[in-house]
């Protein structure tokens, strides 16, 4: 580093504060709830290569540090003072826009005739047109259905707003006024950035300002490297699944081989499934990308909270993301629900890190952030009232020395929930229960957290229920180091009544007056052998109603009588255990075990490799045929129609033989 340590720290403070001031300005002047309340926006300063050297702490979306503005900047053409670039095009922006509702602005900051940095801001807009309101639907099958596509272009030219663009834009989204309001807020934020950058250049000189950008990145690189060096050298492989792709019951696999060499990390995603028909894809163009690497960022800051937050962290990281996989899809595959594979990538890296650092990493979290939405009938005027009844989440995994946290999600979205007293004032619904779901946390010496549960009654006819992004209905959040998996999600209509109906993964479900919807979110994975859990902690969980007595005896070997641990009975029960998974590094649960008894890693790697050699148009069909040939039920229309895999694949040897035959038919 060229800058002296005092100036480095001073300027580090100043550029970070500048991005925070940009963020405050955006949030203060933004218009939509996405900006104001759920803080789904971002601001940062990028260097001349388009990489962030300053990123705000504590305001906006925290996870986008690894975004790259380079392609957006290059595509928009020569830039003049006062220009501002806009884009929402995942492919054309080089992965900067991670799905179409995320409107990205990049502004070159000039000093005289020279660009000295770039300001960046984004917001999640309420709607950008497309097939459905809010633009994102799990049944979209190509990018064009996900709304107006804006390749990198100038929304402001030399300080002059491109009015034609705004007219076109306004005509193509359902909430034009709010959207334009949010764009103005972003422009205001970028203006703040320009002012602060100019002040810094004047105060410290242009050279110092340019040098500091590189030094701050290098600084973060060095600090992160120290944290990453604490991962023992080696290659760690792990894979995990999305339940299905909405069009069949076949799980979607994400696989990583993480190789660590002296604090340098290589992530090879080979063996991951081909891009999905639905929008469960992450557009990365094969580069390092926040949705792939976020767990590493979290790891680094857990080890060293004083590391500067900027792209330097990722100078220690390289990736291989084969083209055609769901982590590097080809145009025009849709990407609207990229959060679902993003959350799963987080779990996959967690699994790889857990093998390297089993004493440090927790079991996997509930892996869900689902808005349960009630759509009410049109009362005239063409408007249907749409209310998010609740943003439902699971819980965090157990880890050595500590239970998971009940009812809290640790992944990247940071959505506030809605007060019950707001929901009932606004929606035709009454909530009867909102709390922690008992008995859902994975058993372990350190228990996985219990997920949330909600139960509400619909108060009028003709409504529709949405629950997009629901996952972990089949494969459970896994336990670690002998810990058990958390309970899978369940969503049920009229629970405990004669007309009870399991809903499973839902897109749109009609509901009427008197219907009671119960959504039970997954618990998280436990850590360590549950038979080694402190009996006092089991007793506490029983008294709090988080573990029932039968489960205490079955899962933990603790016998409780009259509010006390029956020690002789407990000793006997604990000495006499059958069928435990205490010896296993990971506790995946019955469904995943049944699945992998047939579709194991070697065979799935082979399949992925061969499918990727086929043209894009042929891949999905070929993949469907493979699974249908093994078992016709796997060609059902979505996961809800398919019985448990333990039943469907009850004779793994036969299924494997069929699989080998059909894999053999795929072109080499």
């Amino acid at each position, binding site marked *: 580093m060229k800058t002296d*340590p*005092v100036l480095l720290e*001073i300027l580090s403070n100043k550029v970070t*504060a500048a991005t925070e001031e940009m963020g405050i300005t955006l949030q203060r002047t933004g218009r939509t709830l996405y900006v104001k309340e759920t803080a789904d926006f971002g601001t940062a300063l990028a260097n001349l290569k388009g990489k962030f050297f300053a990123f705000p702490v504590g305001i906006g979306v925290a996870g986008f540090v690894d975004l790259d503005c380079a392609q957006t900047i290059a595509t928009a053409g020569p830039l003049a003072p006062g220009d501002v670039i806009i884009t929402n095009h995942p492919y054309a922006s080089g992965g900067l826009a991670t799905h179409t509702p995320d409107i990205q602005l990049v502004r070159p900051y000039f000093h005289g005739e020279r660009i000295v940095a770039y300001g960046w801001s984004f917001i999640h807009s309420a709607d950008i047109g497309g097939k459905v309101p809010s633009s994102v639907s799990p049944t979209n099958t190509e990018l064009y259905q996900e709304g107006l596509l804006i390749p990198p272009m100038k929304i402001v030219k030399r300080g002059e707003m491109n009015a034609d663009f705004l007219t076109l834009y306004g005509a193509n989204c359902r909430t034009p006024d709010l959207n334009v309001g949010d764009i103005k807020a972003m422009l205001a934020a970028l203006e703040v950035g320009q002012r602060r950058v100019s002040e810094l250049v004047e105060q410290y000189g242009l050279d110092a300002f340019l040098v500091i950008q590189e030094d701050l990145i290098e600084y973060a690189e060095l600090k992160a490297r*120290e944290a990453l060096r604490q991962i023992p050298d080696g290659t760690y492989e792990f894979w995990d699944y999305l339940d299905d792709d909405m069009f069949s019951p076949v799980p979607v696999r994400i696989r990583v081989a993480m190789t660590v060499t002296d604090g340098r990390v290589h992530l090879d995603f080979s063996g991951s499934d081909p891009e999905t028909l639905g929008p469960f894809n992450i557009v990365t163009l094969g580069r390092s990308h926040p949705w792939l690497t976020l767990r590493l960022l979290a790891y680094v800051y857990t080890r060293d909270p*004083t590391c500067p937050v900027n792209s330097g962290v990722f100078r220690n990281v390289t990736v291989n993301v084969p083209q055609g996989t769901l982590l590097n899809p080809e145009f025009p595959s849709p990407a609207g629900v990229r959060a679902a594979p993003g959350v799963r990538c987080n779990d996959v890296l*967690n699994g790889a890190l857990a093998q390297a650092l089993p004493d440090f990493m927790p079991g996997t979290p509930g892996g869900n952030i689902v808005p349960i939405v009630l759509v009410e009938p049109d009362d005239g005027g063409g408007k249907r009232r749409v209310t998010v009844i609740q943003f439902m989440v699971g819980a965090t995994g157990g*880890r050595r020395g500590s239970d998971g946290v009940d009812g809290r999600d640790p992944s990247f979205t940071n959505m*506030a929930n809605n007060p019950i007293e707001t929901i009932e004032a606004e929606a035709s619904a009454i909530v009867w229960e909102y709390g922690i779901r008992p008995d859902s946390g994975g058993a372990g010496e350190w228990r996985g957290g219990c997920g949330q549960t909600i139960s509400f009654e619909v108060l009028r006819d003709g409504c529709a229920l949405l629950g997009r992004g629901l996952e972990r209905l089949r494969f459970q959040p896994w336990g670690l180091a002998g810990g058990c998996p958390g309970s899978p999600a369940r969503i049920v209509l009229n629970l405990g009544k004669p007309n009870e109906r399991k809903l499973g993964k839902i897109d749109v479900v009609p509901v009427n007056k008197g219907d009671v919807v119960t959504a039970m979110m997954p618990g998280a994975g436990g850590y360590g052998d549950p038979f080694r859990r402190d009996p006092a902690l089991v007793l506490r969980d029983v008294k709090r*109603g988080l573990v029932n007595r039968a489960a205490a005896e079955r899962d933990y070997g603790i016998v409780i009588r009259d509010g006390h641990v029956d020690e002789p009975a407990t000793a006997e029960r604990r000495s006499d255990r059958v069928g435990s998974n205490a010896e296993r590094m990971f506790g995946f649960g019955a469904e995943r075990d049944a699945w992998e008894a047939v579709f194991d890693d070697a065979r799935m790697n082979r399949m992925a490799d061969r499918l990727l050699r086929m043209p894009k148009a042929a891949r999905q069909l070929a993949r469907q045929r493979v699974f249908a040939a093994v078992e016709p039920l796997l060609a059902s229309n979505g996961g809800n129609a398919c019985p448990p895999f333990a039943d469907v694949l009850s004779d793994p040897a036969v299924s494997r033989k069929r699989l080998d035959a059909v894999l053999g038919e795929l072109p080499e």
Partner: protein
Amino acid sequence: MSEKPTVEIGVDIGGTFTDVVCHAPGGPLRIVKIPSTPSDPSQAVLQSIAYMAETWAIKPAQVARFVHGTTVATNAVLERKGARIGVLTTEGFRDVIEIGRQMRHQMYSVILEPETPIFLAPGARRREVRERVGPQGEVLIALDEPSVLAAVDALVARGVEAIAVSYLFSFLNPAHELRTRELIESNYPDIVTSLSCEVDPAFREYERTVATAFDAYLKPVIDRYLARLEDGLTEMGVEAPLQVMQSRGGISASVTARKRPVRLFLSGPAAGVIGGRMVGRASGSDDLITVDVGGTSCDIALVNRGKALIRAEGRIDGFPVRVPMVDVNTIGSGGGSIAWIDGAGGLRVGPHSAGAEPGPACYGRGGGEATVTDASIVLGYLDANYFAGGRLRLYPELAHEVVEKTVAKPLGMTVEEAALGIHRVVNAQMAEGIRLVSIRQGFDPRTFALLPLGGAGPVHGTALARELKITRIIIPLHPGVLSAAGLLVAQIEHEIATAFPRPLADLEMDEVRAVLASLDERCAALMRAEAIGGEDASISYYADVCYIGQSYHLEIPVRLNDPDPLQCLYREFLTNHDRVYGHSTEAPARIVNLRSIHQARGADALTSADSTPVGENAVKKGRKILLAGHGWVEAAVYDRSLMPEGTGVDGPAIIEQEDTTTLIEPDWRAAVVRGGNLLVTTQG
């Protein structure tokens, strides 16, 4: 016969010192710092009475007012020493306090900790009651009294001392909560209760439940503490009633404070802001940024047009507490902040601090890490022989040693460069913190005056102002005891709010008047309890207003004398919305809460007969100080206590006084103005 009591006493308890300000009409303002007694803070307060009698010959019977700022509420939470409490909730909602709002503050971590105050009442001490009120206040399920009794029995069996009751929509229909209290009191008269419909009658059940639970958690602790203090004062012969500063910046009788303990969290900091406001007004500045630099942190607050900014919800130990409080923002930089070198060779300052023990290395109490104060010694800003008026001797050689060893050597710098580096870094941190606090409120800091307080504040004043492009700094006469002084000028204040969830359109003003009248009655009763009649109180009304569909509101004055108060309310809402949120549209708005505030007495300034120093020479022996961009320069040193009004001093200069040291950098000029305050200005 004793003479008529006229002496006013303000006592503010800090972590290290208990500050006492004594004001007698016609006499000088007297101040003393007594070491705090953390195990029982009231001891230090009572010691102050003894000190006054001995040293100043002020008899307890002469005391007309005794006003107190306390950290007992905050400490009870920080140290988890509140009462063992239970929480009663509506059936189906016992986990509200556990789930919280779900947002998390630790964004970058693989390990998540709970961020809700579960410690107040873990699962087994939260019980559900069968009852349900709907969103219009209508009863959907009547209160099932046997379920209340069963729940209360279970909580009592678990040893609770207090119970918080928070049912859904109780702010619209409090009947079930009120009846629950009757049931508790008739069965367990010793159990203390807090009802959400009284503590925080507004929608959002999590925030309301937390405020109510904190109230119950504090009530037995505060009650015992204030009772002990009241008794102690009476025993010592003080007949004046004890008054306590509340978080909002107004004082109330101790008897009232004991019933509403959740309003005491910012008792101390609020007094500081009120003191700052007094000094600002005396110096002709109604727009102020007060910066209280302590040992471990610095508290930043804004005063706009003579009013301290109030926030509707604050944070205590990271937990939301929805009670109106002075908007004090804390950042982790202070005089005791430790400078350290991180793994990549960067110089960092804070957030760790040497605290009061062992304190900075120069205290000679075994502190082995370089702090900001140590750097100030190396740079010549502080005189080791005149720290705290010479009462605390400092060891400059220890400061040099530690800065050299822990900062200069590892970075390959001279000890002076290192010390300057520490100052520059901490000033940058504080300046950016101040900037963000004002920007969040929609204010440009350049239009404000900076008011550094706390013993460690004034040494940073000109550096911070320069960073912020602020051109006026006011250094109070006694910055080290400004909180205690603030206690004496604060008004007695009683504030009561109620939920009033109504759209502004087609709202009749008579309805609003009727609700405000009922709030007035309750405030007036509280005033009468302090022997203040209706004609002595000034009354103001506020409404919390938001756009329909928006969930955060702004507090807007209700002007009953305006020809069209509702229209006026709406207009002011739009103006405020534009300032705070950067835009406003003429969209429909609604009222969320109505609030009545009664205030009485209070003063703009403490009139004292400080004799203007004459004759003596305020100039002390000068010394060399090191300044960024100037190198070593010769600075004149002044004794502030000998500087008469009108004295002007050009930087570079050092002005010393018992409780602080002020650094005047070049290009700044300091002048003693009315009230003995120091106005520091630059042409910049």
